[in-house]
């Protein structure tokens, strides 16, 4: 039986057409498989790369935008502190200056805090006779908001003087590593007339400079709406830059 079964099954062979069709179909399948994963792999890698690149760009852009200073408040008395705020009114930079307007290494733990909170903290610590606050922003609406907030403090602090400067002065002060309040005062005094020469202005302490500027400003405002020390805006007008 063994031999008979073997002989019988030996006669069963695969047809040539069947073998050829099979060979063609399998090789076609193999070639298709070889191409497909590469394309899928490549496009998947590319998509992942694009997504990551987008995420990085978005993250860095967002961080850059967040950290961009848009507004500044300069608080000058015996010493000075300059606080820069971003477009969300959050602190992004704080610079302290000594009485001569030189930057110091003194740090304040107010990063990322809101405008109102920061002003409360700084102004509540101010014990000088006169405090000069200069405000500037790229955004007019932001400036008005800051001024409105500061006005409430002015009502409580008798010798607080609020000035509004310009974006140009703000930038110039940063470039020169100088307090914006001091830069604003210097600018206004230089523009005012001959009694204030550059050397005098540059060598005076910030306190003296601000006092001189305030006196000059009061003289300019005499006869009209004045900014009065001791609180209470007369008619609500601010000292405005040109």
């Amino acid at each position, binding site marked *: 039986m063994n031999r008979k079964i073997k002989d019988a099954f030996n006669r069963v062979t695969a047809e040539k057409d069947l073998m050829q*069709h*099979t060979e063609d179909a399998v090789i076609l*399948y193999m070639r298709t*498989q070889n191409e497909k994963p590469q394309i899928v792999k490549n496009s998947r890698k590319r998509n992942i790369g694009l997504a990551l690149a987008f995420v990085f760009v978005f993250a860095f852009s967002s961080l850059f935008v967040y950290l961009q200073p848009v507004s500044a408040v300069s608080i000058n008395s015996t010493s000075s502190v300059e606080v820069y705020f971003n477009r969300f009114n959050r602190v992004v930079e704080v610079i302290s200056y000594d009485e001569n307007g030189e930057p110091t290494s003194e740090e304040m733990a107010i990063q990322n805090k809101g405008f109102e909170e920061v002003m409360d903290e700084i102004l509540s610590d101010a014990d000088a006779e006169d405090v000069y606050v200069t405000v500037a922003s790229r955004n007019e609406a932001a400036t008005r908001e800051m001024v409105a907030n500061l006005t409430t403090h002015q009502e409580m602090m008798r010798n607080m003087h609020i000035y509004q400067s310009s974006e140009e002065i703000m930038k110039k002060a940063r470039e020169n590593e100088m307090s914006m309040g001091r830069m604003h005062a210097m600018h206004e005094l230089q523009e005012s007339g001959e009694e204030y020469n550059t050397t005098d202005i540059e060598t005076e302490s910030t306190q003296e400079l601000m006092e001189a500027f305030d006196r000059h400003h009061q003289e300019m405002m005499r006869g009209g709406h004045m900014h009065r020390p001791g609180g209470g805006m007369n008619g609500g007008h601010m000292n405005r830059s040109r």
Partner: protein
Amino acid sequence: MRSEKEVTHAIQLYGDTVRRVCMVYLKNPTDTEDIFQNVFIKYATRSPQFESLEHEKAWIIRVTINECKDFLKSFYKRNIFPTRQSVLINQQTATVPTEHREVLEAVLALSKKYREIIYLFYYEEYTAVEIAEILNKNVNTVYTRLTRGRDLLKAALGDDYHE
């Protein structure tokens, strides 16, 4: 993945084996082409490293058997009325010379559980242990079915085919 050359060589080498296994399981020759392609696609894409030609052949036979079984399951699910068995067997053996056709027809007429073991034992010359491994069955089951299949063949073919 195997190379095209390896696949072409395998088709030439094992084509007949696959054809025979398909005959044992499928009976209907028209279903063979799909099984052929599936087996060799698996060979091309999923076959392991073989220790020897015998190992490779055993793998081919096992895959072919599994493909045939899968095909039969789906065949029945589709509720296609099967052609009468005698007609299918005649189709399968039509190309085989007359002197061998009777034996083939007798083997193919057996129930699947007997004819697969008869084929693997008598034609492929595997031992009962090897058959048990290929079919994933208990070796005692293989012995039992081998004995029973042999008896049925003797009954069908007569004492002239007694070994």
